[in-house]
């Protein structure tokens, strides 16, 4: 990753998308109470709806990548240089944070305002998204240090932080929602 971030991030993108999609396909029926209670007849229908949602979510999160790129720039990402790297970082962030949210939460203003306001119900997808954001944000910390390591280049630490944050967030989410 440090030697050529753009290449690594680019090649791993489809794989991450696949893993996230599979993950969502398996977790949604469990976490959606609607799907459970709707009985055997509708089970098949529900399943096809879930896969539709997943594809829709994937497309939407990819479409929102430029928006995430803009947010990264607002938070201090380079504007004129390393554009491909930042863009791919945004794509990864979209897959990690946005994609599960889009699939598990209804698309309406109130829900998403609640998501921003930290008032949405605690699910693994939600905590994973928060973890991704917090991880990416903390990942920027080591960049200015004078250790002169290869991995201190943009956006290596931020990618690392996002993935670690995602994992920690998911774990916390599973534990909390499991307790309930």
């Amino acid at each position, binding site marked *: 990753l440090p030697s050529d971030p753009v290449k690594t991030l680019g090649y791993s993108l489809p794989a991450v998308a696949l893993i996230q999609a599979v993950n969502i396909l398996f977790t949604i029926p469990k976490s959606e109470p609607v799907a459970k209670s709707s009985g055997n007849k509708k089970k098949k229908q529900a399943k096809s709806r879930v896969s539709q949602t997943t594809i829709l979510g994937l497309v939407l999160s990819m479409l929102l990548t430029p928006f995430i790129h803009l947010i990264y*720039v*607002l*938070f*201090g990402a380079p*504007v004129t240089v390393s554009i491909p790297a930042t863009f791919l970082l945004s794509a990864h962030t979209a897959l990690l944070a946005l994609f599960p949210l889009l699939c598990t939460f209804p698309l309406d203003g109130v829900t998403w*305002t*609640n998501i*921003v*306001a*930290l*008032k949405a119900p605690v699910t693994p997808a939600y905590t994973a998204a928060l973890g991704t954001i917090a991880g990416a*944000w903390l990942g*920027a*910390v080591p*960049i*200015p*240090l*004078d*250790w002169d390591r290869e991995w201190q280049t943009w956006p290596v630490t931020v990618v690392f932080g996002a993935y670690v944050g995602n994992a920690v967030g998911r774990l916390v989410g599973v534990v909390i929602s499991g307790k309930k």
Partner: protein
Amino acid sequence: MIPHALIIAFLLPLESLGLLFFARGFFPYKPVFHGYAPIESDAPPAVSDKVIFMVVDALRSDFVFSNESAMSFTQSLISSGKALPFTARAAPPTVTLPRIKGVTTGSVSNFLDAVLNIAESDSSSSLVGQDSWLIEFKRRPVPGKLVMFGDDTWLKLFPGIFDRYDGTSSFFVSDFTEVDNNVTRHLDTELKTSDWDVMILHYLGVDHIGHKGGPYSPFMPDKQKEMDQIVEMLYEYAEKVQESVGKSTLLVLCGDHGMNEIGNHGGSSAGETAAALLFASPLFSKLGSGLRAPLNATDNYEYYIVIEQVDIVPSISGLVGNPFPMNNIGVFVPELLRFWSRSDQIKLLRQNAGQMYRILKEAFSSMDIPVTDAQALLAGNDIDKIRGLWDQIGQPYFDETDDPVETLYAFLRLSQKVLSRTSSNYDIPSMVIGLCLVSWLSSLAFRRALFSTSADFVAKAVFVVGTTIYAISIFGSSLVEEEHYFWYWFASAWLMAQFILSARVKSTTAGLILISLLGVLSILRHYHHTGQKYAGSYDIAQFLSSDVAAGLLWVLILLEHLLIFKNLHYYVFADVSPLIAFVCSFTPVISLFSFKMSMALEAGEKVPPLLAAITPTSTGADQLLNRAKTSFLSIVICMVFHILSTVWSTKRDQFKFIRGTFHIAVLLLVVQTSSVNIPIFLLYEAIHSLSRILAAQYRATTPIAIVLSTLIWQRVSFFAAGNSNSLATVDLSNAYNGVAGYSPIPVGILAFVSNFAGPIFFTLSGILQLSIWKNSSKSTRSVEDIFAVDFLSLIHAFHAVSLLAVMGACMVLRSHLFIWTVFSPKLLYTVGWFLLQQGAVDTILGLCIVVVSDLL
């Protein structure tokens, strides 16, 4: 309000006292030998009779040696073998006063000299009673005659030693020609009289050009040519004297320090420490053929052989046959040894070694232990090695050993290394007293900030977390160098936290404003790339100061002026008749604009011809002085008018007075800002306007949130304007606006205002927002109460804790490699923030505005 203000009035002086104790222990005067070196009975014969010591301030190595230099005659001296070139590494702090001490006494300076260099009037920096190669001339049986022309720092360091002199003040940095003509005009008569033994010339033009326009300023080649001609004149004089009288003259050309990529100095980067050094004399052609000159430009500024700057001292002393100064830790330059026979070479180096051994004995008690096994010692640590080598040098048949010169150099170089390391010893008890006092007081202040102020849980939580992380970050040297990243990062976090809150109360307006603020922040962080790691990488300021963008820059400057005009017109002169209002608000703005314009022209910046045509073309120092005075005068008149109109107006309006004062103050801040930074005020104004809307309309705003934002924007604006925690970025180019000569108080105030323009802006903006908040929230608290209780407590607590953290870092890391290059400058900056920004501006000025606004 009054009890709160009283508590601050109690805490502030006590904290300053603690700081004083700490500084006394941390910056001790270095113990130096007083008295003079003993006369050597068996010294090798002198090679030179006269010395011309020509210092060109900030003469970086590449200014003379690289193929981009315009100093062709000097280069021809090198290639024909009449001069020996070196890169002399200057020890930080790379500012003039400590560097002159270095090249005359041969000792390593202590950090306090850097401060004294700025507080010029201090007389404790004088070198009376300290040995130097200048004094050694005076100690000859027939005292030598010394003359000096140039930077008056020399006169301060060596009072009464010069037979003839003419000093120039070194701080009037906008003058490029007068300072140097003032030196050169003496040369004709002095070279004719020729009765002196030492002539010192100190040219300041290169340094001034660097401060104004950087190392590649369009003025630089001409100035280099001018310096080159002076070298030519002096060298021809040396040849003439050699032929006619038979006296040999040594010409030393050197820079006291270099400069970095933006023309500043003070720190320890490669460019700042690489000074040019050249020994020239007609005698040198005897030594052998010349070296290739010019050389290709290099990134590390290392041309030819790299030596330590203090090595100049024993070299001059040796060449003129004087004893080496007592405190000298310089090593005689090997390339100059060739003038003597082998036995004289050894004698000379022995003299150098003996003199350095005296210092070693003073510094290390282990030097007195008799040596039993020299071979074993040579394998030990540095001190042991020195003892072993000294033992070898003392052996009776040392001169007949294989390579005595090599052994002597091994001893000298190692001793130099060890001695330049141990240049400071701390007064630990005094530091501990200061630390204890400040930690007690800052914990009081912090507790008060949390529990005695009005309520806002989230803002206080962010404040506590932020202050804690900041205090911890100070213990990392690179986090100090790159402090701006912390503030950009923390600012975005605070805006994000507010954004989440705005989503909670479902306020779209507030959300949009906060996103816009994030946008402004992201422009600010790219305005100047400061710090160490990415300093000098392409940023908005560089773009705006390039010739292509001159039009854009001046359009933005004009916009800022229009904005000031509008604000004055609407908010200060609103009650008078339209014509008078127009004239009154137009006059200060146009005088400000013409001052900034002529300043830019004077500095050689590119100004769009259309604009340059409308300002009167006659420039010059006097003109500039008058325009600056006009600007200041018009600001004073505005303020007087503002106070009177508030007094006379029938309706009492506290808010209106604060608002008008704020807009007049912006005028003053822009006067003290260099042209490339004026557009940054548009961004400040944008932040101010957006925050004002939040304060007025957004019900989730609290005084605590406003104060926290103020604190963050103060820091962000400080770094965005190009400042850093290195002394190199102290900008003195606006310190002499309207001041004819050096006088510490006005120059100090002007320098402070120009470097802290952003923080001062946001102090006033914060006070204004508090009064807006009071009006719109219909709070029963008075503005004075909000100011004294919330604003002062929080700001004071933050500064007290950061002071404590910096003092703690300096205490814990006192043997750290970067203590003098990173942590000590940080301590100085923190003192500036604590005493001047927090003490003078936030507390005293803020209190004045708030109290006066209530009285009127």
